[in-house]
């Protein structure tokens, strides 16, 4: 394994107000799985974007297989065999899977016309070779995030990548999907001699999949180690600069009145098929109800229906005693609900607006920010935004830059900070820590528990089962839009719950 696939030499990258990469020198060996870890905003994506030719470094050089990169451009990188799956996907939503995969290298009929059949055949071939199953004719906007990611990976493989960069690929995956992905990674490394660079915030994944690991902090590469010499604790403290202890969360037992009530709810998905099929549930104040389900079993649609983002077909949803069928999100928020959505880019932030504008949303009519109702009070707004920015330890180039330029985890912190700032008695939370580093996860979890202890009723959905277990008081499992079981979190194990998540019913499992 002596060969070098990629060499970074003294790479620095400066953005207005931030030094995102600071003199990084690093070799990636051919045929290895290299994990890159570090806090939100440490500069991981930036470094990988340089390798993929999206960013031109302000300083330093990159060599791919010994060949110096003269011109930073994704087209050049692709031709040098580099492929990248981004933290935020870059697919054409209205195209089919096959069309997305062959995009820019379409098979042609008679040299001109797009050959759809050919594209689907190519896709089938890829699917067979690499064992990543997708339906070639499905439209991308109608498939789950997990599947969209497979499409992204297949796309790079189709373009002949042999150095594959995966930017937080597992953030959007279920444990099963993660296992499948790792199997694929092992296979392409072993059988196809590929080199894989993977960014992740989940340290056990680093231990599981990587040969070597690089740790970044505040733009600098602070260590490169053989994974076998490390453990999760060492990694975490190297990353954050202090030990990270997942202390037990202090949960007070003070459960109050029913705040969320869902009766026989039926909701459709984007294709008009039934996604939520007669779900009933109830959450009381001071309680967290967690939803455990494999991606695509109706949990997204359920939460969207409760928050007014999706039409209710039948059944009813009652928030704090008021039936909300047919209300828009604004009216429902008015009853006292806040919502952390699953997809931060499309729903959770306005990427083209500043951090301060994003933090203000929902409060812009408050008298303190809206002098006499006729002028925005910019001084007060800036002060407020700065305070939240500090409190949630958001790291970026300040409150005036566009949210779109922030690192993924910090963008998530903006969403969490804003939604928690309403102090709403009802919280609907989806994937609260997706893409967030270990230190910040700790903080967000504490915040969620604090809201709960102060009497909020919380409905939580997360692809991360550990998170569901850690936070929830009760857990329900969803399978194909139906509730398959309900448990006290303390009375069931992760293994047992997996059984219900795959469709076995409570009654079939144990006659109690």
């Amino acid at each position, binding site marked *: 394994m002596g060969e070098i696939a990629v060499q970074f030499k003294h790479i620095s990258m400066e953005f207005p107000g931030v030094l995102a990469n600071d003199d990084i020198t690093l070799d990636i060996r051919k045929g290895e799985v290299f994990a890159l870890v570090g806090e939100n905003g440490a500069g991981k994506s930036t470094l990988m974007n340089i390798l993929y030719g999206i960013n031109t470094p*302000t300083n330093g050089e990159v060599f791919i297989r010994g060949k110096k990169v003269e011109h930073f451009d994704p087209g050049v990188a692709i031709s040098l065999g580099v492929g990248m799956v981004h933290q935020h996907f870059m697919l054409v939503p209205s195209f089919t899977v096959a069309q997305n995969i062959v995009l820019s290298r379409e098979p042609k009929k008679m040299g001109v016309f797009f050959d759809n059949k050919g594209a689907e055949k190519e896709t089938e071939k890829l699917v067979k070779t690499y064992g990543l199953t997708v339906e070639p004719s499905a439209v991308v906007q109608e498939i789950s995030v997990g599947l969209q990611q497979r499409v992204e990976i297949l796309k790079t493989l189709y373009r002949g990548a042999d150095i594959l960069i995966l930017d937080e690929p597992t953030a959007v995956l279920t444990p099963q999907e993660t296992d499948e992905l790792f199997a694929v990674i092992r296979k392409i490394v072993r059988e196809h001699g590929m080199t894989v660079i993977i960014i992740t915030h989940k340290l056990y994944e680093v231990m599981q999949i990587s040969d070597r690991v690089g740790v970044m902090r505040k733009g600098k590469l602070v260590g490169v180690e053989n994974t076998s010499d490390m453990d999760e604790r060492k990694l975490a403290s190297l990353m954050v600069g202090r030990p990270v202890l997942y202390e037990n969360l202090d949960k007070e037992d003070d459960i109050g009145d029913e705040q969320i009530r869902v009766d026989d709810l039926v909701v459709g998905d984007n294709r008009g098929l039934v996604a939520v099929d007669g779900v009933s549930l109830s959450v009381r104040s001071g309680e967290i109800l967690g939803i455990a389900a494999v991606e695509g079993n109706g949990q997204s649609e359920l939460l969207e229906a409760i928050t007014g983002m999706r039409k209710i077909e039948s059944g009813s949803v009652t928030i704090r005693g008021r039936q909300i069928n047919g209300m828009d999100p604004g009216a429902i928020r008015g009853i006292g609900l806040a919502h952390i959505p699953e997809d931060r880019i499309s729903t959770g932030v306005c990427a083209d607006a500043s951090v301060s504008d994003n933090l203000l949303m929902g409060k*812009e009519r408050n008298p303190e920010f809206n002098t006499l109702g006729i002028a925005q009070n910019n001084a007060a707004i800036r002060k407020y935004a700065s305070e939240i920015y500090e409190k949630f330890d958001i790291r970026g180039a300040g409150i005036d830059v566009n949210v779109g330029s922030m690192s993924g985890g910090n963008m998530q912190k903006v969403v969490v900070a804003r939604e928690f700032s309403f102090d709403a008695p009802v919280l609907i939370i989806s994937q609260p820590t997706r893409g967030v580093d270990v230190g910040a996860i700790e903080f967000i979890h504490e915040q969620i528990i604090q809201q709960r202890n102060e009497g909020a009723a919380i409905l939580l959905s997360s692809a991360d089962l550990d998170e569901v277990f850690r936070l929830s008081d009760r857990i329900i499992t969803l399978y194909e839009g139906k509730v398959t079981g309900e448990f006290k979190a303390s009375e069931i194990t992760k293994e047992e719950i997996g059984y219900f998540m795959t469709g076995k019913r409570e009654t079939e499992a144990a006659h109690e």
Partner: protein
Amino acid sequence: MNEKQNGFFANLAEKLNLRYIGSLVLSVLLAFLICAVILAVAGYDPIATYGAMWNGAFDSLRHVGDFLEYAMVLCICGLACVLGARVGIFNVGGEGQLLLGAIFACQIGIWLQGTTAWIVIPLAAVGAMVAGGLYAFIPGWLKVKQKVDEVITTIMMNSIAAFLCQYLAKGPWKNANKNMVAATARLNADYWFGNLIPRSNLTTAIIAAAIIAFAVWYVMQKTATGYEMRITGSNPRFAFFSGLKTDKIVILGMVVSGMMCGLVGMFRVYGVEHLYRASISNDYYFEGLTVAMIAQYNPVTTIYLSLFFAVLKIGAQGIELIGVPSQIYLIMQTVIIFFMAAEKGISESIQKSLQARRAKQAAIARMKGGVSHE
């Protein structure tokens, strides 16, 4: 530390703005240069032509008044377009809204003949706004509720409005004068806006226009409503998710845009033409829209650029006096747009290659300097 950062970003914002201004000036100069070449090839003396253009705009107070009036039209039309763009809707239908506003405002003055101007003028303004606003409501509603593309509907509705007005001016609302084919009756002189510069087109309407321009700027830049409009235009899903009534905001933005266009129609009738006929507007809205586009939908820039293009346009009438076709103005406008559009791509690629060069030089310097790191 925080202070320093604020200062830094203020500087940055300034720099970016300077870049825009720089590229604007450059585009304008290039446009003048290219038109000079075209003129020379066509056998005209460019220097003399530009001289005549300058004279055409500035040689008399009357011409100054004319270009100010035209700047007013461009500015209000441009701001109407900016307002739509702000909430994410592209109002291409301003021309139709303007024509309808003009003809209804005119007809109100004719119906109420004999009533005091204190009643007629406000009523005519309201009538123009209602006509323009309602006419903009239709495509706005169709976009929001039925997902019908507003560009297509507004373009079609422009034709419908033009034909409808033509019909009205030739038919039911036609004047008694046998020689004028397609025009309404003339307004009573009591209702005319007063001239600010004798014999020019500049009337007291410009005061109303200035107030409107200020109000639009203020609402868009300084109020919570403007903030909500901006967020809605930029990410409607996020705006809806956050609790804004996005449908209402988009429709309202479009309706107000239409009302402004309708008012421009009324200003044209009560200020300049004193009756309705098709020449009330020669695609003036589209010129306003062009200005808004060049201004990158920034309200303040729209106001400045309106003045500039108005000077060009009125000046172009001056060059006709020395026998040069005034269409040269259109060529110039197009060239400026072309360069503004190209500028973005060009400056980006220059920046990229500069960065690459800097990186290379740094690397060479390091190599020459021998060992530096490690």
